[in-house]
């Protein structure tokens, strides 16, 4: 069975500081990994994905994520946080089946 864990319910960071939102996964085969963002009262927006190739994936709005196979992680990062980055972030994986399995989400709060 495939699963995704986001160990932090909330991450707080000051504007201008680097941010990391953690994600670990469990699949039996090669994982396809995704990050989505949900702004208040809006649907989910795709940020980035890892399918194959370079372990460092760059996505929208200056976000990036690093695939680490040995640690089964796919942490989301941004060098300098903006207040407008405050939102709910979901990590997701496709592994054993075609279904996209989501983590429980991490609320990012960037304060001025």
């Amino acid at each position, binding site marked *: 069975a495939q699963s995704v864990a986001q160990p932090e319910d909330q991450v707080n960071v000051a504007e201008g500081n680097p941010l990391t939102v953690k994600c670990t996964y469990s699949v039996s085969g090669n994982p*396809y990994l995704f990050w989505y963002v949900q702004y208040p009262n809006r649907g989910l927006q795709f940020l980035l*994905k890892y399918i194959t190739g370079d372990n460092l994936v760059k996505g929208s709005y200056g976000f990036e994520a690093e695939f680490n196979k040995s640690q089964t992680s796919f942490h989301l990062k941004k060098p300098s946080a903006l207040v407008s980055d405050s939102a709910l972030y979901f990590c997701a994986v496709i592994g054993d089946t075609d279904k*996209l399995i989501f983590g429980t989400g991490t609320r990012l709060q960037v304060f001025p």
Partner: protein
Amino acid sequence: GAGVSQSPSNKVTEKGKDVELRCDPISGHTALYWYRQSLGQGLEFLIYFQGNSAPDKSGLPSDRFSAERTGGSVSTLTIQRTQQEDSAVYLCASSLLSHEQFFGPGTRLTVL
């Protein structure tokens, strides 16, 4: 181009009534997904349509929930005899491949 659309955006109903939620996927997308997002919770997979294959209904929480996809395009999620615990945001997504899903804005269902 047009994204995934859902209607209605908000639905308030009385306990015991039936409701229908509609999803118009991106034209040409062969896969369509329904998810449920309860307040403060992650995304719960409900059902998945892929082309002409039999749908994956493994996420439907009870037999009160059903979904159809007509002509490989529009989908309707029906909830019969609604209960208060059905209150949630119902999200639809479509994709050409299973890798990147595009989400609609969701339908917020409130059962009184």
